[in-house]
């Protein structure tokens, strides 16, 4: 009888530990959100979006250049990553059993695990050093390399979900395999592919490390992609350690904007997946 009670106590202890773990993980989440919103709201106003950074020591100013920079560099990254990601996923899902497909899957997983700072060093070596020029292009390349594996893997998974009868139908009507893939399978998987792209954007929009020595930073407004360009993340990093209260406040505002961008992307991705699941009857 005693041992039964002991076993029950043990069991309850374990269940409490699991509940506690969940609470333990959610506490910092609540703290971070609270601080980012509370501190960020105070410094966030229209100026933040429309003005340029104020000279050191002066109050006011904004991050207009950095916001535009983030948009341009993530755009460049997408331009580079989406075709590679989607088309390699077509290959991997169409020729599943081939040796190259297995190798590509492994390479994508490996690339996904490479620390972002290492990607930064790599891009510095291939795109900055040869031309001796930091540039937004190099920054876009770094972010693009990080996006590729996410897009490839999600697109592959979602292409496999498209019922094979759809493709077979197209083939039976005399379509070539390419036609079947590009006119039937890809459009059917489109919401899924968009999900993958959104997830990739959510992952890289907040990246700082790969931009530190590729796109560098720029205090001035610039849309020239062959020149250094400021981004929200790098700007937040420089302001975070600043001694000036005003710059610290701007850093929090930047963090709030960043969190909003990232959350919007992942929320949209989630909604798209949900719809997909309902459509497919999961």
């Amino acid at each position: 009888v005693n041992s039964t009670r002991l076993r029950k106590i043990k069991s309850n202890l374990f269940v409490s530990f699991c509940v506690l773990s969940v609470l333990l993980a959610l506490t910092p989440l609540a703290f971070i959100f609270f601080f980012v919103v509370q501190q960020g709201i105070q410094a966030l106003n229209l100026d933040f979006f429309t003005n340029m950074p104020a000279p050191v020591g002066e109050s006011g100013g904004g991050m207009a250049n950095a916001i535009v920079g983030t948009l341009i560099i993530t755009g460049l990254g997408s331009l580079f990553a989406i075709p590679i990601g989607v088309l390699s996923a077509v290959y991997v899902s169409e020729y599943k059993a081939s040796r190259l497909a297995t190798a590509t899957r492994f390479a994508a997983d490996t690339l996904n695990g490479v620390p972002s700072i290492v990607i930064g060093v790599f891009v510095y070596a291939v795109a900055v050093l040869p031309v001796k020029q930091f540039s937004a292009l190099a920054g876009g390349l770094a972010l693009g390399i990080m996006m590729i594996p996410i897009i490839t893997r999600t697109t592959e998974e979602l292409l496999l979900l498209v019922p094979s009868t759809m493709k077979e139908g197209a083939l039976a009507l005399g379509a070539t395999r390419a036609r079947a893939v590009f006119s039937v399978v890809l459009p059917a998987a489109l919401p899924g592919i968009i999900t993958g792209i959104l997830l990739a954007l959510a992952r890289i929009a907040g990246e700082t490390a790969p931009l530190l020595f590729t796109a560098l930073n720029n205090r001035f407004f610039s849309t020239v992609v062959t020149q250094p360009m400021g981004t929200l993340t790098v700007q937040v990093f420089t302001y975070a350690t600043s001694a000036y209260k005003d710059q610290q406040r701007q850093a929090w505002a930047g963090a709030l904007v960043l969190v909003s961008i990232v959350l919007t992307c992942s929320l949209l991705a989630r909604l798209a997946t949900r719809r997909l699941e309902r459509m497919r009857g999961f």
Partner: protein
Amino acid sequence: MPQTSFRTRRRLLSADAALKWSTSAFAALILLIVVSIGAELTRESMLSIRKFGLDFWVTRTWDPVQDQFGALPFIWGTLYSSVLALLMAGPVAIGIAVFLSELSPQRLRQPLVFLTELLAAIPSIVYGLWGIYTLVPFVRQLELLTPDWLKSIPLFAGPPVGNGMLAASLILAIMVIPFSASVAREVLKSVPISQREGAYALGATRFEAIKAVLFYARTGIIGAVMLGFGRALGETMAVTMVIGNNPLISTSLFAPQHTMAAVIANEFSEAASELYLDALVEIGLVLFIITMIVNSMSRILIWGMTRTRKSPKPATPSARIAEAV
């Protein structure tokens, strides 16, 4: 007409070949990127590799002025902070995974999964900012409250500065929990329901039944925790903002130290000499190799579990995506 059909077949075949070759070029490009990361990093660190050889990895001196470079303090800092993070995050991540897959009421499950995913979505730089202004002052308070007898232990020695190993490993732990938890949950999902039913039928308590499930899934769970470890090794911004960036080898949790990723982020754009730059690139190269090994090992462990899944229901798209990302 046999000739037309022959031509049609040829047309189809060549179109197939075109699809295959054009898409395979893109697939090969991914392979090429991974290979060239390794090759480029090796090429760009040749000066340092030639000059210091293996001594680079066991030397403590990091003196850019004298052109003396030893990476030991950074390797130590990376491993120490990641192991500490692993010790803290591992049990919590497993606890979360068990709760979400075995214990949670149906209605709570989706919202909780969503919240843990949010934790993974917060950018590293935001963690760092929060770390500087909230976590570090909190850790400093903790250090001030540490009684003297405890401070005589090397683990807690040193002045209370706040910035240091404890703050860094705490923030790393918070950051890797969601990764390990979500993969561990997928692994637990792949355990056949019969494992649980069998245990309950034998009169097991909840704990005993879950223990059986965890034992069944052990390789995958270890893989999930290792995947978190791999993330921690390469984490840069949040760590560099709270660890103190001081190349010191110390077991003290309170001492400001440094990591491989942090030293690259801090000193790369200031590296004045060729040798200095190459030494930093070599640190990047080793970081690349270490994370690749850790990640591959954990992927193999996780694959072994989830590939042989016998669960009757197919994985939902979100589960597949969670696995892919």
